[in-house]
């Protein structure tokens, strides 16, 4: 039975069967058969090559591999063969004019697009080498490992505590829920602002606080990758700055992919930037390079505002 100090706020937790917690084990097709304490977050198979044999600097395995990804909305060929690697513990920004496919690409990374009728996808997306579109992969597990924060803050009309605890509760989390809520709120840099009002409505928070609450809610199910679709575009500059600081802080523990229309935001917070245009990847490079010496003329024209 989960122990909690807040029984009135947690009827679901009280009534939940003592099933195991959400797993941080990188399997995508075993929804609820793993304990969590004995399986550290790691993608390494025992058969993986000995780290000692690997040269130390470039040996980082990409967190996500996207290979020849195509996507259609009906007849509209929205992604036309995207291939890119996304490095772990980095912030990768996707930029490009409206309709270039960046949000579509982002949603392909946790199978959100398949919820839309009349769409088709080809190509592969691997997370830690595992195909998230494999027929045995469970979309719910995929989305637990690859979480998402949306453009507009969308807290549930519940208390702050409930918002964060929700995912863990429905998954039958049997750890210390209070500790999970606190840890998630701290990671989202919101704890100090809400610790004395955890049981008041999330809808009373400011926009920036609501967005950080949504980040905390995403983190509470312990994903590896966090996708963010313009997470600060509906926020004022101070709230934007807090969300940006939070993102920078989060990359220690998570891999982050962010779609943004704000190129200064991309340049401030990301390590790598990918520029998409008309469904194709034009250029992907370290952010400082892309904004100082872009390789492609089209990238330069876009970042300097000469078209778009």
């Amino acid at each position: 039975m989960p122990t909690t100090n807040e029984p009135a706020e947690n009827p679901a937790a009280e009534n939940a069967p003592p099933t195991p917690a959400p797993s941080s084990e990188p399997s995508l097709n075993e929804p609820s058969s793993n304990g969590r304490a004995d399986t550290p977050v790691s993608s390494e198979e025992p058969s993986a090559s000995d780290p000692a044999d690997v040269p130390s600097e470039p040996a980082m395995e990409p967190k996500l591999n996207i290979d020849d990804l195509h996507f259609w909305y009906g007849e509209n060929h929205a992604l036309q063969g995207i291939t890119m690697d996304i490095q772990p513990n980095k912030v990768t920004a996707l930029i490009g004019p409206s309709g270039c496919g960046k949000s579509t690409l982002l949603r392909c990374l946790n199978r959100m697009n398949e919820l839309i009728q009349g769409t088709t996808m080809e190509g592969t997306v691997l997370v830690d080498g595992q195909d998230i579109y494999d027929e045995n992969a469970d979309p719910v597990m995929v989305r637990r490992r690859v979480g998402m924060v949306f453009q507009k803050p969308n807290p549930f009309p519940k208390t702050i505590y409930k918002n964060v605890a929700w995912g863990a509760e429905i998954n039958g989390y049997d750890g210390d829920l209070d500790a999970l809520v606190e840890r998630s709120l701290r990671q989202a840099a919101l704890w100090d602002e809400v610790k004395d009002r955890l049981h008041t409505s999330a809808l009373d928070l400011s926009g920036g606080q609501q967005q950080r609450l949504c980040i905390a809610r995403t983190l509470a199910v312990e994903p590896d990758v966090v996708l963010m679709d313009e997470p600060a575009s509906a926020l004022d500059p101070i709230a934007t700055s807090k969300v940006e600081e939070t993102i920078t802080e989060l990359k220690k523990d998570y891999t982050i992919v962010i779609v943004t229309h704000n190129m200064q935001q991309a340049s401030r917070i990301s390590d790598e930037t990918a520029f998409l245009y008309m469904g194709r990847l034009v250029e992907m490079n370290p952010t400082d390079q892309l904004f100082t010496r872009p390789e492609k003329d089209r990238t330069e024209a876009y970042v300097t505002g000469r078209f778009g």
Partner: protein
Amino acid sequence: MPNRSSLDQELVSLRGLIADMANRVDEQFANAMNALLQGDTELAEQVVDGDDAIDALELRIDKQCERILALHSPVAVDLRMLIMAVKINTDFERIGDHCRNLSRNARHLANAPGLLADTRLPKMADMSRTMLREAEMAFLENDRLKARKVIARDLQVNRLHEETFAKLVKMCQDGHEQSEVIAHLLTVSKALERISDHAKNIAQSIVFMVEGRDLRHRGIDGEASASADLPPVDGSSG
């Protein structure tokens, strides 16, 4: 996303100011050399007085650069244009200072007509001035090849400076009766050599703007060895 039309206007205005700066400095240089060659102290005075206008223009250009950086946050080629503008502004202003210093020698050389014309200094002045004008053209036309030619010429001026320096020292050692004038000629030679250095710097900045490539300090052998010894500059330690 920059407001392109407004940024373009600001850049046009900045380029206009720099072109004005280049013209004024070029004129100062011509006047300074004429004052020296003709012993024209009045013209020399005019050059000294003219330096204030160049200093004022330097401040105005820097202000315009600061304004564009603050209001438009330029990136890529636009950012390199701004970095170049700040740097060549300083180079032009320094050339202006050297012109002022050159003309301060006029009164001393006026007592020894012919001595200056006897040296390679007029040749050095011609070459430095060609470098300055070519650098100016390279700036106006964004012409990286012209800029690279300017850079190559600097070696010739340096050689002439060494030659002149050795010759003047020898004249002193041989007991030339006008050793004070010779000391002034040494100053002139040094000033001309510095002017060509600044013209070279301007040309290097133009190559940087157009190509995104930093040609300075090639002796360090490019980025590879330089970055091996220095801490990383990506600021991502936090």
